[in-house]
């Protein structure tokens, strides 16, 4: 005992190993055990969250398809000056013929065609039509390929086609991102698209703006409900809570359709207004298939996500604060505004973040009740995922949306402070 305490070196454990190492070993075993407990969750998050987001980010810039499908042409084209005003030479055409033959056999010719078609409409049919015949090309004795290809499809005589192949030959592209912000690669580098083709920036701004409106109307509507929930006697509060949660037990489509029935021009609300005499039968209000319809329906759908965090925060505020404020001379309003309200801000913050982030990702409801001016950017993402199959553009739009959310989250942290968010 005594010699152990006397040594000036490291403190030793009972078995003679340095205490520090012994402690680290014991802790490591503990940490390992803890890690094993959360391993399924970590794995789940990795597989279902991190990997898909990583894949999305990768797809938004990935462009290997051109160089992989048309390796010879890409190489041959590197020497061609797109501004020369002349078509590429025979070597390039020969390379393209060889690439096409191989691509057709692998059924990759239309994919590369579709890819390039995003940048230059019409290219996909050039590849589709030429691909079939390319299967029968005799590379040894055929040619001259310039004539053969142009004969198959006069798109090969279009310099724009070759310029597009050349521009989009690198394995990484900014094309999807440029497209996602209504730009494109022109002869002189990136440029804005023509006015008539700009959609995404408007949609993004509209999505953010309307999501803010929805968040705000959720705050306004949820606040009194949450207050009632937190202050009613338990029996009534439970009943109210069931009413708040009831929408969760109904399908999203049903709820959205119900709003259609209520809000359309021959709908319940207009019928009542006409019946009461507030609105003329010939001037029924247009309150659906526009932004108003989207805001109403989405506010309703997202309301519980605002009520619940608010409620759980309000529940923790004892009524004595309000009494204290009043006893100190504050009117009802001052007591609420200076004392009660500031303490509910963490709940409002949590609810707002939740509702806002959910709102900017919505697409079913806006598609059904949004008409032309109430749709969101997610509607375009869904369109590119399932209909146009332009997954690269969808990924770029998704990445931008993700970035916007992160920026807003950061701004929120700076302004309000993220520790000021409480879910209960």
């Amino acid at each position, binding site marked *: 005992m005594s010699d152990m305490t006397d040594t000036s070196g490291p403190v030793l454990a009972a078995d003679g190993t340095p205490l520090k190492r012994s402690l680290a070993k014991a802790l490591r075993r503990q940490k390992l055990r803890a890690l094993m407990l959360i391993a399924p969750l970590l794995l789940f998050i990795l597989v279902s969250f991190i990997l898909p987001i990583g894949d999305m980010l990768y797809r938004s810039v990935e462009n290997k398809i051109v160089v992989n499908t048309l390796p010879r042409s890409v190489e041959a084209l590197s020497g061609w000056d797109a501004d020369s005003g002349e078509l590429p030479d025979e070597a390039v055409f020969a390379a393209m013929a060889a690439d096409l033959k191989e691509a057709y056999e692998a059924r990759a010719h239309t994919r590369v065609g579709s890819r390039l078609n995003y940048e230059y409409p019409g290219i996909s049919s050039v590849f589709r039509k030429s691909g079939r015949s390319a299967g029968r090309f005799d590379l040894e004795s055929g040619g001259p390929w310039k004539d053969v290809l142009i004969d198959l499809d006069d798109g090969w005589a279009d310099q724009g086609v070759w310029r597009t192949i050349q521009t989009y030959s690198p394995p990484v592209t900014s094309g999807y991102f440029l497209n996602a912000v209504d730009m494109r690669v022109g002869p002189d580098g990136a440029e804005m698209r023509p006015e008539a083709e700009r959609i995404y920036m408007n949609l993004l701004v509209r999505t953010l703006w309307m999501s803010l409106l929805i968040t705000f109307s959720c705050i306004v509507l949820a606040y009194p409900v949450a207050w009632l929930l937190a202050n009613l006697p338990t029996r009534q509060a439970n009943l109210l809570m069931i009413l708040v949660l009831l929408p969760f037990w109904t399908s999203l489509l049903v709820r959205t359709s119900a709003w259609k029935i209520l809000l359309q021009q021959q709908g319940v609300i207009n019928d009542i207004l006409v019946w009461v005499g507030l609105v003329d039968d010939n001037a029924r209000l247009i309150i659906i298939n526009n932004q108003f319809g989207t805001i109403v329906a989405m506010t309703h759908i997202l309301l519980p996500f605002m009520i619940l965090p608010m409620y759980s925060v309000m529940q923790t505020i004892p009524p004595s604060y309000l009494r204290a404020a009043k*006893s100190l001379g504050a009117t009802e309003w001052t007591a609420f505004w200076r004392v009660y309200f500031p303490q509910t801000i963490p709940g409002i913050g949590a609810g707002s973040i939740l509702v806002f982030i959910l709102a900017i990702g919505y697409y079913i409801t806006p598609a059904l009740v949004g008409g032309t001016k109430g749709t969101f950017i997610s509607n375009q993402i869904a369109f590119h995922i399932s209909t146009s199959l332009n997954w690269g553009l969808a990924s770029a739009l998704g990445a931008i949306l993700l970035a916007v959310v992160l920026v807003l989250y950061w701004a929120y942290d700076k302004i309000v402070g993220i520790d000021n968010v409480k879910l209960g």
Partner: protein
Amino acid sequence: MADAASNDGFVVFDRVQKSYDGETLVVKDLNLSIARGEFLTMLGPSGSGKTTCLMMLAGFETATHGDIRLDGQPINNIPPHKRGIGMVFQNYALFPHMTVAENLAFPLEVRKIGKSEREAKVKRALDMVQMGAFGGRRPAQLSGGQQQRIALARALVFEPELVLMDEPLGALDKQLREHMQFEITRLAHDLGITTVYVTHDQTEALTMSDNVAVFDDGRIQQLAPPDLLYEKPENSFVAQFIGENNTLEGVVTEMKGDTCIVKLDDGEVIDATPINVSNVGDRTLVSIRPERVEYNKDRLQQGVHTLKAEVLEFIYMGDIFRTRLRVAGNDEFIIKTRNAPDVERLTPGQQIEIGWLPADCRALDT
């Protein structure tokens, strides 16, 4: 103690009743007058109506019937924020999102007091509770005792004439509580404010108050200064609620002036002072404080009745001895004796005789 003239005045409950459900009264016909500058404690078990009275005074509950007057003005219809009453809450109710100084400035701000005057008053109030250095902190960064002081300072900073305190020391440990009891009474008296203090802790009530109103069942059972309350309880509830107390049940057999003879249920006879009994034949609960019981015959008055007792337990407590006896069939009869050189230490099983001054033995209601 305030003099009799001002006694009719500052806070008056005039036949006040309160019911929450329309079926039962939680406050029954309450009459109470509190003098300016008086420190009054409302003491009682939970559910006795004391907190309801406080809340009615503060304006958070309305009286179902009767008037509450403040300085002669009925205040039933005045909202709480216009009553100008300072209040200290059980859990302090310090606003967690404001600093200590902001908490104190709050009542001044809502009164539209200018910034410089506000700051001066806040500083003075903080100094008054010895918390001058803590103005920039948040309530959560303070200890319980410090929060208590801030709550007190906040209730006083706008110089109210009346301060209400709702079990303000309930959350503190014993030592801190005793210290704060002293601080609060000192402040109240120094500032000359009227204080209504609610507690269920009788020690607190006895040590702090000018007057104590003992509540039970929606009524004031007795309103008296602490010494009277302890020594001269007017009914058996007060006798048992305040301090330790022995009771024996019996029938009045004889009334003679300011004493009476009570025949206990096991046949023995004792002397007592009649309080709530007036006729021979009344059943009564006689009450005697443990420290007023004597078993040293030399100290007993000549001619008083004595009772036989058997010692069941003897507990040495340092300054006193505490002995449990069986007296007239009651196994829980306690006596307390000061630890003095000449005092005999009893042993369990010992048979003794006990007695008391008739003035110390009060014949109360059953």
